[in-house]
């Protein structure tokens, strides 16, 4: 078997006396769509921030695309894409200007940038407007495409579909599938349980711990619930 795209062992993060992430362990295979679920404050964002090198772990270790998140952050940066829950393109720049920026940062040549941006405009059906003028759904799809611009091995999506209508969400997931088919590993957090059903595997985090992990089908039969939604309510309900 090939090396996992993400390998996490006993990863822990404490803030003072509070343990935000409590000794979590899991593997994500290359090309997999992994749903990272949990209620607000369960520790999802803290875990992601450690995986993308924005936050140092208190203990434990994690490897992303084969590189250690503590010692090899520089290498990791070229291998990952990231889309945060806040919209993160520049609204006062046009679509092409945003693409040129991130293309330049990731070391793409002018030709590559031109090629990929025209492909992107075409597939998203966008003109080169100011990003601020685009409707939210289009912005999110654009942000996702820009996060994939440098063809990263792993892409981290932190609640990418917040506030987006169901049709756009479905289109967004089509983009995710297309990326996964292209070999990109997708690590996604979401609050929409229907989206969780689309994932290859999911984990559910409660109070900093991963309480269950498996394919949606496995988990539903294991916990004897009809939907992931029901499972989530059962597990994540605050005590």
């Amino acid at each position, binding site marked *: 078997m090939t090396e996992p795209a993400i390998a996490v062992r006993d990863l822990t993060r404490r803030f003072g006396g509070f343990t935000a992430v409590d000794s979590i362990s899991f593997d994500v295979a290359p090309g997999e769509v992994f749903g990272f679920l949990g209620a607000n404050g369960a520790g999802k964002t803290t875990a992601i921030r450690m995986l993308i090198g924005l936050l140092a772990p208190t203990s434990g270790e994690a490897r992303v695309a084969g590189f250690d998140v503590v010692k090899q952050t520089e290498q990791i940066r070229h291998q990952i894409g990231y889309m945060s829950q806040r919209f993160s393109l520049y609204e*006062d720049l046009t679509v092409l200007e945003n693409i040129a920026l991130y293309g330049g940062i990731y070391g793409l040549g002018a030709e590559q940038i031109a090629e990929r941006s025209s492909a992107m405009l075409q597939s998203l059906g966008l003109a080169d407007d100011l990003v601020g003028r685009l409707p939210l759904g289009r912005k999110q799809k654009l942000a996702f495409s820009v996060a994939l611009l440098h063809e990263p091995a792993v892409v981290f999506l932190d609640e990418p579909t917040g506030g987006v209508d169901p049709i756009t969400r479905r289109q967004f997931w089509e983009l995710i599938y297309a990326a996964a088919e292209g070999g990109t590993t997708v690590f996604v957090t979401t609050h929409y349980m229907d989206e969780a059903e689309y994932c290859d595997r999911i984990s559910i985090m409660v109070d900093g711990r991963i309480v269950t992990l498996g394919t949606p089908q496995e988990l539903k039969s294991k916990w004897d619930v009809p939907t992931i939604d029901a499972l989530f309510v059962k597990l994540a309900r605050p005590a």
Partner: protein
Amino acid sequence: MTAALRAFMIKELRHILRDRQTLTILLLMPLVQVVLFGFALRSDVRDVRLVVVDSSPDYATYALRARFAAASRFRVVAVEPSMRAVEPLFRQGKADVAIAFEPDFAARLQSYGPARVLLAVDASDPNTATTMQAYARAVITAYEAELAAQRGQPLRIAPETRMRFNPTLESVNLFVPGLIALVLTLVSALMTAISLSREKERGTLEILLVSPLRPWQIIVGKVLPYLGLAFANVLTALLAAWLIFSVPFRGSLSLLLAESLLYSMVSLALGVLVASLTTSQRLAMLVALLVTMLPSALLSGMIFPLASMPAFLQWVSNIVPARWYLIIARGIMLKGVGLEYLWKETLVLGAMTLVLMTAAVRSFKPRVA
């Protein structure tokens, strides 16, 4: 320069150029400030309230008093026998200038002098004080010339001036260097702080920190475009001061520009620090105003002379970069001196740049420990 840095700087330039309103304000500001400050500080003084102190009136003192009474700018508010009465009038703000004749004024004048007069000027507003003093001297000189023409021989009146409340009189030309410092602070510190904290607030900074861009590249990319803007501002302020108010420029322009660059770097580093230590755009703006703009205006010697401040504030002023820049800019512009006299101040600014830039890059560590 790496391609990543270039891409980032292009993006910064686009931000600046796209926001036309802010850009216009930033570019016009030096012009507006030079004009406003210039006219506010150089406003003509009318209705100077004069106290005459004449302990032994004679024909000469009466004649000179009559000249003052006739001068349109002066109004005699009191005639006193001794200087003792002057102090309370000054303190209450009822008089601006006192003129005191020495005893036997006419006799000394007759014996070809010099006959001495004392001019005491309320210099709590230094610029007004200079003007009032000049007016008073003009009246005296005119009388002197008139007498000399009558007698066919020069007669000397020696006026001696005392500036009350503010002995270190500041010249009107001093405001331009101060203004440049203020504009540079505003563009460099305030705008950088705002622009960086905007990235923080919108979440774009996180994306940049996850990218291969290194923290120093983010800072350099942020800072360089604003440096260009700051440069344009310096030139505008200098040009406006020269064209509108004929403020002299005695020293080397390239030295002044180089020093301005150094000062901008200090301010930019401060702006970066402020942005990384605050949590929102609004807070960053307020803190930047508090720690950069206010000290630059108030504690640098630009408006209030440092010498008249309490010892504690004088001590604090040492850590205000504008204080050092002001000494340099005034030295170059008004005294025409070069680096041989200004190397100490330049070193101070250089050291500040080094310390603050290091702190700024460090505060920017992507990973929170």
